């Protein structure tokens, strides 16, 4: 299983209901072929200005879908995307390991300063707690 990211642009002339149906169709395709759809979103608020006109169209709906699947699925998905007339452009990219490794690192760094600060407040209550704890065993000894 590999992680992939598919981005495709749907024609703005397609109505909302039909567009959602289309998005559903592609995510269904992934799940039907043993893939797991992780996320589907209207990227950048959905409707976006294209950097250049494609077939005289200057706007499009950007859909971003992340999924994990076997290596044969992206080709099948691309085939379906290319057949669909409402899809202006598509891009299926494999998500590299580096992508996910970026985030854990800052998390690991963060606990270290917290751990250094934490013992100081704990040390003070420990001293206060000690005299309280001390009389208690004496009582038990006396009894």
């Amino acid at each position, binding site marked *: 299983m590999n992680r992939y990211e598919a981005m495709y642009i749907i024609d703005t002339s397609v109505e909302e209901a039909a567009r959602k149906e289309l998005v559903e169709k592609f995510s269904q395709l992934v799940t039907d072929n043993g893939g797991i759809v992780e996320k589907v979103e209207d*990227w950048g608020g959905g409707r976006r200005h294209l950097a250049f006109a494609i077939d005289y169209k200057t706007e499009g709906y950007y859909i971003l879908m992340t999924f994990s699947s076997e290596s044969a699925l992206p080709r099948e998905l691309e085939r379906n995307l290319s057949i669909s007339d409402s899809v202006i452009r598509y891009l299926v990219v494999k998500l590299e390991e580096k*992508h996910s490794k970026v985030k854990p690192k800052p998390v690991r760094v963060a606990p270290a300063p917290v751990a250094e600060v934490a013992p100081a407040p704990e040390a003070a209550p420990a001293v206060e707690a000690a005299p309280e704890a001390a009389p208690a065993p004496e009582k038990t000894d006396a009894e």
Partner: protein
Amino acid sequence: MSEDRGDRRSARPRGRKPRRKVCAFCVDKIAFIDYKDVNRIRRFTNERGKIVPRRMSGNCAKHQRQLSEAIKRARAIALLPYTVD
């Protein structure tokens, strides 16, 4: 010794001050350049939409390779232009 060093400095062509450029991606500690990060990537294209060379941007080789890949992906999905007239 010190005289030699002085000579070498003066041997440089006049008017040019070589300043060490640092890779913008290394500074920001970015391990992966995403094609969706259009605003960051766009700064490395010139007004014609071309990819700025390493000698201009000062990027390290590793990040320049990633950057060119990201720009080309962004172009394919119409996030960045191929050319600007």
